[in-house]
């Protein structure tokens, strides 16, 4: 049973930062710790008070009811379906009505339940933006590095941003695009193709909504057990994102008591992927524009977080990639003067900020094997030349001073056995990508 309620939280933070500034972990007792509720905004419905196990909190001041709607969010249009025969046979599809430039952004979302789909080509007029050759496993096209995940045959849903970031809109015409899809599974599947459109007069700042689905064990979650906990997470993430003009404007928090989900998410990485796909599908019908975050009290196999797609499918719910999963786990550790509970909140915030970064279109600046690198010119590369111990991986101490300071670095930098806590930087170009994504209003 789920009881709906609403709660408004004013969580706008002061301060901020500039590119290159370290500011995730403030001194204990600083303004970031001074999280407060505005009492006159507190509107907790009595029904919610009667249902401690299943409580939905909405942290957006404008919203009074968070019930999922049967109406898709405005701006999502199903433009057609195509049958993909399987065994990597290509199928071209014309995508009409793409808008780019003048504040307009379009995301093409391909959702093929049961399939394993990749994009073979993306083109418009005489320009090929992305071209993957299955036979030689080679990629070309004028923007191919931005579309790296489109050839990953690991899932049934993917998103294609046009333009890849708003400053590139001049290279992406409005009008008809051609997308060629392949399904590498053996059986035919039907791919539904959607357009998500965004019109933003000012890309220099924006806000996101996070839908936190908090899974409980026996009625409680070890990291997010209360309104204050949810607010703290929101504020920590906002504080990281402020450097590129972004904030977490609103939270929708829903506590779920679902032993089957807890059991599945505690299994292998394959089990967790299956859970993520199932939970993402389960968001169909929601009417909000939030990014769905499934927070599990335990994830198996040492996993901390997993994102459905890069980029995620905007504000479209119900696809296989409409969400991310993260471990809301109690680690029993005291860090930098924080209590163990605060440390858990910080770590979860860090994980969520990283995963949401993926959802909004960011790659790791350099992958752990020293390649590939993201396609941005303002995120330095830590290639295999930095692999001084020759283990084939570029770790934190090896990449220190190169790109470990970035939020999207693939792992923790370590000093004296502990995370440095200063890996929060988002570059201006990364910010451009994030602010282009349709989930950012």
């Amino acid at each position, binding site marked *: 049973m789920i009881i709906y309620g609403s709660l408004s939280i004013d969580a706008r933070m002061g301060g901020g930062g500039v590119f290159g500034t370290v500011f995730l972990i403030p001194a204990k007792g600083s303004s970031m710790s001074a999280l407060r509720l505005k009492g006159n905004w507190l509107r907790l419905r009595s029904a919610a008070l009667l249902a401690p196990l299943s409580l939905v909190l909405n942290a957006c001041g404008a919203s009074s009811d968070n019930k999922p709607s049967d109406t898709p969010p405005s701006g999502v249009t199903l433009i057609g379906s195509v049958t993909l025969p399987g065994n990597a046979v290509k199928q071209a599809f014309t995508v009409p009505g793409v808008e780019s430039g003048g504040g307009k952004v379009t995301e093409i979302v391909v959702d093929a339940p049961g399939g394993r789909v990749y994009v073979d080509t993306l083109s418009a007029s005489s320009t090929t933006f992305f071209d993957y050759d299955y036979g030689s496993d080679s990629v070309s096209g004028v923007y191919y590095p931005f579309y790296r995940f489109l050839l990953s045959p690991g899932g049934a849903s993917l998103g294609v941003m046009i333009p890849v970031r708003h400053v590139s809109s001049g290279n992406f015409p409005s009008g008809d695009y051609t997308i060629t899809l392949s399904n590498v599974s053996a059986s035919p599947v039907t791919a539904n193709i959607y357009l998500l459109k965004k019109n933003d007069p000012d890309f220099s700042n924006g806000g996101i909504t996070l839908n936190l689905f908090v899974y409980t*064990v026996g009625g409680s979650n070890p990291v997010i057990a209360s309104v204050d906990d949810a607010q703290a997470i929101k504020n920590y993430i906002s504080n990281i994102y402020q450097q590129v003009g972004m904030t977490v404007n609103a939270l929708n928090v829903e506590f779920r008591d679902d*032993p089957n989900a807890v059991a599945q998410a*505690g299994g292998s*990485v394959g089990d967790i992927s299956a859970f993520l796909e199932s939970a993402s599908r389960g968001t169909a019908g929601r009417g909000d524009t939030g990014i769905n975050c499934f927070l599990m009290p*335990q994830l198996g196999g040492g996993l901390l*977080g997993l994102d459905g797609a890069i980029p995620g499918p905007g504000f479209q719910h119900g696809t296989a990639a409409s969400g991310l999963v993260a471990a809301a786990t109690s*680690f029993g550790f005291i860090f930098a003067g924080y209590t163990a509970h605060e440390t858990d909140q910080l770590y979860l915030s860090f994980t969520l900020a990283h995963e949401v970064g993926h959802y909004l279109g960011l790659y790791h600046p350099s992958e752990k094997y020293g390649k590939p690198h993201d396609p941005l010119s303002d995120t330095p590369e830590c290639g295999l030349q930095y692999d001084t111990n020759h*283990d084939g991986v570029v770790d934190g101490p090896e990449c220190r001073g190169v790109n470990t300071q970035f939020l999207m670095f693939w792992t923790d930098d*370590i*000093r004296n056995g502990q995370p440095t806590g200063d890996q929060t930087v988002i570059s201006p170009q990364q910010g451009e990508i994030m602010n282009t994504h349709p989930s950012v209003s």
Partner: protein
Amino acid sequence: MKHLFFALIAFSLVFAPASFAQDVVVAYDNLISVLSGRHGMPDSAYFARLEPKSATETLMKIAGDEKVFPVARARAMLALAYFKSGEAARMVADKAANDKNPYMRSSAYEALGNMEGVNAVKAIGEGLKDDDVMVRLSAIRSLGRVGGPEAKKLIEDNAQVEKNPTASAVMQKSLEQMR
């Protein structure tokens, strides 16, 4: 003779990487960082490159170091499954039974099942009696993965006394999957 020379070169090119593969020694902080990835832990190909004795010792040290963030400590225990070591298995069993941090006990039960399989069923079964429900959940899942009649009986017996509704439901689900 010339053919033999080229054959030797070809042979060394094919087999030399395998002989070098287990020579890599990774320093303490570097290995902690490798174990601290945002998404998950390294795959078996990574551990196959490491010099086994040194890697086992370093992983055991990380797992036992309370100054290290528990994510890396837990993954160090999971990584020890790649290196067959009785000493490591005993250390992980000790962590499962005695570590004061529930997250570490929970992770140790997962690692123990991966390392020892059916040989660890009795030890993992002790986790079903842990005061912390997250530890019990981990022990249930670990027994479910290991499988077998002994594991099943342990879950059945403890299902009678489990009070937490989530743990109780996960036990029932495990039993259904073990049938």
